[in-house]
């Protein structure tokens, strides 16, 4: 019999639990990240769903509905066992020993002592329920209190609780319960109590991590300042955050407790008078060759209960923590609705031609919500186009669509993107390969999250270079070092050997830029390349991009919300608002004589060009104070 797995593997004890999928503040640089359209979509969906009460959400999830129904039926039957069961749990009738299935009054047959299997199943369910309750209850009480205490109060307390729970965690659980048999006398309630204590470290970890995460939140500070006592804070604010993962863990814990109790009963620990799945399975196993089905019924029942609990836990996690998006084939290419694709017709005259591009995301009700509504723009060889607009206007979406890396949920509902005459929409990764990294390059917005944290910087760059160009490893390394140097990194060799978390944000961005230009691309798509950086670094990066552009004669699609950047290096501008281009034109013309209302408003919002900000961004200031 296999035991279902540790409840702490439900919500991962190693990673901190986030309560939503969007992170407003970047943990590494401290800079506030501008919300993208994608994020906005997610947040909007979440906000909508947050307004729905949890139980309603669960109702819509078939997995939750089925498992909860099953469990309610099963445990309900168990609770009313005394009313439903035709016989007592230990009522033995010698004439009925090993009676087969379907004997009148003995629906599922009788066991080796002549006891009705159906009745015993019902009573065993009761035992299982009690076992689950005791085990889980104790684990929750001990774990939650210890986690709150350990997480909230100072170092000394934390160290103590850590030690105690490490100790508990290293007890080999089942073995310990067996070793303690002489003491417990095998009484399953006492055994479950001890088991509950053994289960508590998982809960402790979850709670402690969450408390640690929340402890320094501003609203907790505010509460402290307002004079609320610790208990009140713990109770109200902290407990609130904890409830989601705890509910999830509970489902797994109950399954675990039931399985362990069954295991022990199977081995013969404990009173034989108490009906339980374990003892039923054991006697069925003994009689396997005499009456094979005796073994089946408790096994199936136990299987249903534990499986349902695990699946319920998963469903709860999806509901309470936000469900994972469905996986889809990596490299399959963007979803394009063929019906509405615009035809290729005229030959293309520009390096990059975007015509009537329309991108949509699925909304809650199964329909599509357009975020890019017919965008058209051109870029010529060596030309720098600034795509300007507020957050959420759809600029990055346009860029991603060009690269072919829109998220899986996105659907292109119309338009065409042609690069050098080649239609890009509808190509999969294999087909895009000749272009990506070679002819078309990309610089992302957020440098740290765009580097693989497990690989050295140099290795990642070498990998990219070798994917784009057919060179040996040695040669690639030389190129990379040269690039790093070109991109302004002072000690290229050291950076080459470093891991992403060991370099600064500015250096990371330079690394990414180096990687992008390694193959001398014809089109560089830069997605807000300076937004996530400190102001002083921003200027340097811009200089770098400008120099590289001049040197390599690259066309650049520069997505930005910053007119200063635009003024600095762009030739043409396209202004986006709510998914459409509202104005297009040469940079001087737009700056001097904007036509559209929106453009005017944006330009008007720029701070006085005489004023240069000298104060560092908010996040950096906070770090300095900490």
């Amino acid at each position, binding site marked *: 019999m296999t035991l279902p797995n540790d409840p702490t593997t439900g919500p991962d004890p190693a990673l901190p639990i986030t309560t939503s999928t969007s992170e407003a503040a970047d943990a590494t640089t401290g800079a506030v990240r501008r919300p993208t359209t994608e994020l906005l979509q997610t947040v909007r969906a979440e906000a909508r769903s947050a307004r729905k009460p949890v139980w309603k959400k669960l109702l819509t999830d078939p997995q939750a509905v089925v498992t909860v129904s099953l469990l309610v039926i099963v445990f309900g039957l168990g609770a009313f066992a005394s009313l439903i069961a035709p016989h007592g749990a230990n009522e033995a009738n010698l004439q009925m020993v090993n009676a087969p299935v379907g004997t009148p009054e003995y629906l599922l047959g009788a066991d080796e*002592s002549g006891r009705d299997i159906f009745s015993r199943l019902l009573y065993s369910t009761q035992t299982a329920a009690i076992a689950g309750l005791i085990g889980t209850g104790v684990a929750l009480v001990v774990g939650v209190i210890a986690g709150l205490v350990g997480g909230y109060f100072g170092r000394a307390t934390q160290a103590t609780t850590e030690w105690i729970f490490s100790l508990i965690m290293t007890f080999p659980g089942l073995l310990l319960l067996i070793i303690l048999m*002489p003491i417990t006398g095998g009484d399953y309630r006492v055994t479950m109590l001890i088991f509950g204590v053994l289960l508590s470290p998982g809960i402790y970890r979850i709670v402690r991590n969450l408390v640690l995460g929340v402890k320094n939140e501003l609203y907790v500070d505010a509460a402290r300042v307002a004079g609320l006592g610790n208990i009140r804070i713990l109770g109200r604010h902290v407990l609130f955050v904890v409830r989601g993962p705890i509910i999830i863990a509970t489902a797994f814990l109950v399954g675990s407790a039931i399985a362990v109790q069954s295991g022990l009963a199977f081995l*013969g620990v404990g009173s034989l008078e108490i009906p339980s799945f374990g003892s039923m399975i054991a006697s069925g196993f003994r009689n396997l060759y005499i009456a094979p089905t005796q073994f089946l019924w408790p096994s199936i029942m136990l299987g249903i209960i534990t499986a349902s609990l695990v699946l319920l836990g998963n469903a709860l996690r999806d509901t309470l923590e936000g469900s994972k998006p469905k996986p889809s084939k990596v490299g399959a290419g963007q979803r394009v609705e063929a019906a509405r694709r615009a035809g290729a017709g005229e030959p293309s005259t520009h390096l990059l031609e975007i015509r009537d591009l329309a991108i949509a995301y699925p909304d809650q009700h199964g329909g599509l919500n357009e975020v890019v509504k017919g965008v058209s723009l051109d870029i010529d060889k060596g030309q720098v186009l600034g795509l300007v607009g507020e957050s959420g206007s759809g600029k990055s979406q346009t860029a991603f669509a060009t690269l072919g890396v829109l998220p899986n949920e996105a659907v292109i509902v119309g338009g065409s993107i042609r690069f050098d005459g080649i239609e890009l929409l509808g190509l999969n990764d294999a087909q895009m390969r000749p272009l990506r990294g070679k002819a078309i390059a990309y610089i992302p917005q957020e440098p740290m999250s765009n580097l693989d944290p497990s690989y050295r910087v140099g290795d990642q760059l070498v990998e990219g270079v070798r994917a784009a160009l057919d060179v040996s490893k040695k040669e690639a390394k030389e190129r990379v070092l040269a690039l790093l140097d070109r991109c302004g990194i002072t000690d290229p060799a050291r950076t080459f050997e470093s891991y992403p978390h060991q370099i600064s944000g500015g250096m990371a961005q330079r690394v990414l830029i180096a990687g992008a230009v390694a193959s001398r691309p014809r089109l560089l798509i830069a997605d807000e390349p300076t937004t996530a950086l400190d102001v002083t670094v921003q200027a340097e990066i811009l200089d770098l991009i400008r120099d590289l552009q001049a040197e390599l004669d690259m066309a650049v699609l520069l997505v930005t919300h910053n007119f200063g950047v635009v003024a600095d290096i762009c030739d043409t501008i396209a202004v986006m608002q709510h998914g459409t281009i509202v104005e297009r034109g040469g940079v001087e013309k737009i700056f001097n004589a904007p036509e559209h209302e929106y453009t005017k408003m944006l330009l008007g919002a720029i701070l006085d060009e005489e004023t240069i900000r000298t104060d560092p961004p908010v996040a950096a200031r906070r770090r300095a104070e900490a």
Partner: protein
Amino acid sequence: MSNFPRKRPRAFALAALASVALVLTACSGGGSTPEKPAAAADAPPLSIAAVSAPNSLDTAQLVDGQQMFVWSSIYDTLLKRDDKTGELAPNAASSWKYNEDGTELTLVLEPDMTFSTGDPVDAAAVVATMLRSKETPGILQPKFALVDDVTAVDDLTVKVTFSAFDPQFVYNLALAAGAIGDPASLDSAESATNPVGSGPYTLDLAASVPGTSYVLKKRDDYWNADAYPFPTFTVRVLQDPTASFNALQAGEINAATVQPQVKSQLDASAFEFGVVEAQSIAFIDILDRAGEKFPALGNQKVRQAINHAIDRESMLKGIFAGSGQTTEQIFSPNGSVWDDALNDTYDYDPKLGKKLVEEAGFSGETFKIPSTFLTTAVEPTLSQAFADIGLGLEWVAVPPQQAQSALQSGEYGLTFQITGYNSDPADAFFHYSPNGFGNPLKYTNETLAGYFDTIDSTVDADAAAPTYRELNKYGVEQAYEAPIVFLDTTWATTDDIVLSGTKANPATVRMFTFEG
């Protein structure tokens, strides 16, 4: 109606004509029963499943039961039980004789026996082993309780002197008490794990996994090598009946006990079945016979009511698959005290039982009774039976290591046991003697004391027989126990291996013989 087996006349001769009897037994005793010349070269390795493994192989710590399969192959015992008749027969001791009052037992050893080291087996070895077992606290020590001294009269003659006649003693010489150890290594550190013996096999420690499987290799220099056809003897510990059945079917072992209901699932052309009759007895042992803590149990009517409450036939059929026979007495049909007539004493009559309990004034009493792995199958039935007569049973889970103290503590009024057959004197002692282990609260009364006085002073088995029978009758009337069934054991064997007989003999390799 008495039931004397045909062997009686011979035993009578033994008592009457001492010296002649010696010769007679030597000639016609079990040790030299004409045996087929064993086709030792043809017999396959014997591999059986046993439910328990010996904890220790130290001669002072040997335990009877299925554990004997292993140690009896390593150690020779002085006497053995005949395969076909179950009678006590010579083995390493070619003859034995008591004096008049049973205070001296003389054993003559077979000549030219050797230990596996090559050392000779002599009286000194027997003396050393016995005295050591007598001195060492353990399970074996009580078997020597009445032994004053053991001496070597000469190289091959051993004299055991007793403080009083012990009717069980010679029977024990076919069991652990009769094992002969090698004085040179008795006290070595390895005596418990890799001992030296003079038995037909030696333990191949390298191939064995203690607690799991034991591989025994035959000794060609064993004095009676021809009587043991199997070149190797492997004992595999398989506690679970399904596991041992699987192993049997898969050909991993060639002999195992099987539950009778599954016989049909074995290929009848490949397997033979043998039944050992009345190997053990299942019974309710009333512990508090004096009624000290449970006055109800001190009342004969209540005890008789309990006997009426049990539906022996149904239990035999339902729980024990019909493999055995019902009984209302504890003496075994394998012995000579058993009286068929006594089995009509207590009909299954719960109504009568209830009436008796009410008359005695103990309706509604509940008794605590230990719950162990042995009681699993019967708990519901027994609870039901007691309920039927207005009494109650409260099953209390007792871990095995506390079983002993639980019984001796006086906390439990009765218990359910299954014990194996040894001999009539052993049964008498166990169940009714104040020192018997089935009587841990040491109950006795004048009548019982009287019976034991006679039994313990009558050396001749025939002369003692009537007393045993009276004891049996008394025991049944007083209902000190509620015997339920004698259980048979069914063995399934293959590869032309068969059971040597149907008698409930000790678990030794002699149980099996080769028919090739």
